[in-house]
């Protein structure tokens, strides 16, 4: 074990792989020194595990209606109580974790690459392409995200897919800005010139040399944005524009519980705690990642 550690932390790595692994290991060590980041990572990990193995964590079926058990307070049988159709809230939250995870992963998978490519192309090519692409980006950036997402979903119709599309459409511009700023700092580096002199096309330079270097800033930003994505998705669900019943989406569950808030408080409050915990986890992790990967823009020091 000690030798592995030495191999990872050596000052003179013998291979590219060793250097890369060593760098990741140092980052991991730095991340582990930040207690909030560790807590965040644990929350996110728990979310992923619970989502994947939902049937093992759920104590009841999330969909079976049992009217004799309706609106039961939290108890040994129903850990977080039951809703107005007698469904166990804990089990619904567990299965709802899947929906939340799918939404954030899909939004990140659409918006982050799209924004990064737009930003990298814009920064590398410069000139007219830059002006047009950044003009569009700035228009989207200067507009209220939630309102735009609402209007898009109103036009496309309610549902998870459309909610994902609407959130992705409103969140890519931030990544384009970041990727462009990174690209501008590296486009005049010597290794880029070297690649160009060897006859590499613009597309090849962007894909092979520029995008990998933009990725760490974009990843930090994506992690920090996750909380916002979760909140927007839950907000759309709350308004009835996101996931449709009987899907156990957390925002929609709060909306159903609204009618019982005064007497059966647990129906609406429990899903909210789930949202807060998961969003907070992503915030903590993102904050920690920023301090580790990108110390220059961190505002904590």
């Amino acid at each position, binding site marked *: 074990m000690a030798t592995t550690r030495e191999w990872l932390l050596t000052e003179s790595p013998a291979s590219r792989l060793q250097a890369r692994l060593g760098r990741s290991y140092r980052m991991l060590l730095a991340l582990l020194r930040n207690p909030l980041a560790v807590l965040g990572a644990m929350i996110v990990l728990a979310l992923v595990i619970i989502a994947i193995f939902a049937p093992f964590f759920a104590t009841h079926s999330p969909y079976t209606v049992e009217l004799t058990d309706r609106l039961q307070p939290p108890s040994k049988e129903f850990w977080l109580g039951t809703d107005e159709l007698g469904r166990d809230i804990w089990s619904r939250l567990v299965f709802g974790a899947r929906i939340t995870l799918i939404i954030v992963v899909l939004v990140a998978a659409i918006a982050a690459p799209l924004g990064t490519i737009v930003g990298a192309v814009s920064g590398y090519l410069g000139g007219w392409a830059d002006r047009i692409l950044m003009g569009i980006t700035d228009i*989207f950036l200067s507009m209220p995200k939630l*309102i735009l997402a*609402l209007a898009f979903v*109103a*036009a496309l119709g309610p549902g998870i897919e459309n909610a994902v599309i609407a959130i992705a459409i409103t969140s890519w511009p931030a990544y384009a800005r970041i990727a462009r700023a990174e690209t501008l700092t590296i486009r005049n580096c010597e290794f880029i010139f070297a690649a160009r002199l060897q006859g590499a096309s613009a597309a090849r330079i962007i894909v092979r040399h520029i995008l990998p270097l933009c990725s760490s800033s974009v990843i930090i930003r994506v992690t920090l944005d996750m909380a916002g994505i979760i909140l927007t998705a839950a*907000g759309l669900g709350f308004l009835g524009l996101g996931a449709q019943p009987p899907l156990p989406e957390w925002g929609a569950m709060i909306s159903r519980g609204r009618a019982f808030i005064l007497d059966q408080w647990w129906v609406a409050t429990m899903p*909210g705690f789930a949202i807060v915990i998961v969003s907070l986890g992503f915030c903590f992790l993102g904050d920690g990642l920023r301090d580790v990967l990108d110390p220059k823009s961190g505002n904590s020091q």
Partner: protein
Amino acid sequence: MTTAFTFLGLLAITFFIGRVVPIDPVLAVVGDRAPQAVYERVREEMGLDRPLFVQFFSYVGDVLSGNFGMSVTTQRPVLDDLMQVFPATLEMATLGIIIGVALGVPMGVIAASRQGSLTDQAIRVVGLLGYSMPAFWLGLVGLLVFYARLQWVAGPGRIDIFYDGLIPTATGLMLVDSLVAGDLDVFWNAVSHIVLPASILGFFSLAYIARMTRSFMLNQLGQEYVTTARVKGVSERAVIWRHAFRPIRVPLITVVGLSYAGLLEGSVMIETVFSWPGIGNYLTAALFNADMNAVLGATLVIGAVFIVINKVSDALYRVLDPRAQ
């Protein structure tokens, strides 16, 4: 110039959204059983047979002349509706930003002056909570605790039905109108209604304001002039408030402007929870009724106000900061 470009972009987006609606606007007027000839005639009358860019220009012209179309739900021009509901949102967001600044700025300064302490950590967590709580959920929990259980504040709505319509509408801002009319009963009732939703909005702006204040302050406290002041024996209190705080007032204006614009947006969810008769409530009601004119009109107005506040705070920054001139 760029502002005009941004507005054009906003119009292009709302126009585009209006075009991707799966509902055929002609069918909405003539019904599904209309003969082809009638359908074609109405389509021509509505101008939908013209090329897209011509339609876009006529849309821009309509919006600029204040024609946002009719609302299907209220049967009134959308612009009239918006003018009527906007003051309610403005009142709540303004009170929210006042609360946010009054608490957020001191919190940020204190966090920076005790960097790394338990206070600093606590303020950081409060700030991150502001980023991770759904506004609608916090509104519901607030209603449950402060209205239903503790009975400290009044419930949803702007005013009790008992007081509704007692005072003449002058500005549309309930707090101002009641003071102008000299009716303190109405004023205090309105206060007890607005205080909870405004505080919740304030909490969300506080998160951002405190965070930014802290980082600006840390930047200043590391400067040499601060060390000089300390060496000269200036008290820590004076160092912080008189020396370090002064230069950050200008960038803080931009931060406050941004969060004010954000609150107009955040009020959509809060208004829905508190049945607050503002633009957010209007927007969500329109969403449910598939009232696209109203949806797009509200989107346009919120978007436009958002852009204007951003530009104004940018401009203020340039005017107030001597280095930027």
